[in-house]
């Protein structure tokens, strides 16, 4: 099936098409899901190369699992976030603690464009603050506020209850606020506190 014809097809239907041998379904799924997984992994690991490895591994597991996918049991994106989460946590456990200064600088800040610089500074500050949070709090905050998952979906990804998710998100946001408290004016927010 042509990629354009697949734009309105659900992730689940695409996965079934892929399992049935459709040649265009994998490309459509890759273009749709890879940015989400990569964005999540990059913020969890604060390392672009490792994030790409995790993304590739998570997508590979998706391809292998496709013929056994049970329709209606879970969302494909939620399943993928869960796999990526576990891969990220495994890598974080094996690696040494990451310091704030190890978060990568933006690759291209478009010099001369003040607005983009300010935005890049803000994202960098947020990423550094996220990297300083405990792993589970970072995971919950990124899934909730950047990836846009609902609390029940995050509960499924993290294999915990919804109340635990709410608690992790609240503690994570409180931690972020504390970490960024001295940088309000620097990041372009009026009236620094």
């Amino acid at each position, binding site marked *: 099936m042509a990629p354009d014809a697949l734009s309105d097809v659900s992730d689940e239907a695409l996965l079934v098409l*892929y*399992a*049935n*041998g459709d*040649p265009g379904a*994998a*490309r459509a*799924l*890759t*273009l749709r899901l*890879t*940015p*989400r997984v*990569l*964005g999540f992994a*990059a*913020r969890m690991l604060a390392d*672009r190369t490792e*994030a*790409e490895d995790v*993304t*590739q591994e998570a*997508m*590979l597991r998706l*391809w*292998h699992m*496709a*013929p056994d996918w049970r329709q209606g049991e879970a969302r494909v994106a939620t399943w993928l976030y869960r796999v990526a989460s576990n891969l990220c946590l495994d890598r974080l456990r094996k690696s040494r603690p990451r310091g704030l200064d190890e978060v990568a600088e933006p690759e291209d800040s478009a010099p001369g464009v003040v607005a983009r610089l300010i*935005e*890049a500074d*803000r*994202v960098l*500050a*947020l*990423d550094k603050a996220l990297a300083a949070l405990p792993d589970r709090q970072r995971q919950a905050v990124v899934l909730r*506020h*950047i990836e*846009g998952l609902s609390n029940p979906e995050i509960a499924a990804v993290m294999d915990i209850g919804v109340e635990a998710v709410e608690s992790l998100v609240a503690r994570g*946001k409180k931690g*972020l*606020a*504390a970490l*960024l*408290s001295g*940088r*309000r004016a620097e*990041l372009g*927010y009026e009236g620094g*506190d």
Partner: protein
Amino acid sequence: MQDTDLEGLFATARAQRPMPSAGLAERIIGQADAVQAGFKPAPIPARRRRWPGWIAAMGGNGVLAGLATATLAGLWLGFAQPAPVLTLTRTLSDAFVADAGLVAIELIPSLDTFGPEG
């Protein structure tokens, strides 16, 4: 840092989602194609045979075996006529005939009248 500031930061981060490089996307699609090539084709349905459907309609192999046993038992009783069965048959037959008063029945009595007239 206030909640609204954090929300603004999250919104900016959402808008600046890191995009996969062309190389990453191609590697992932290449793996997908390789995995897909290893999938077994869906099995072609076997030619439908009549016997299995017929047996299933009868209730399965167990019911069929019971039916065959009953048939053989009936045939054996008919041919062998064991003494208890013969006694029972005679008793019932005598009782039926005595009650109904039927000694003999002419199934086609009219044939007798046509015969003498030639």
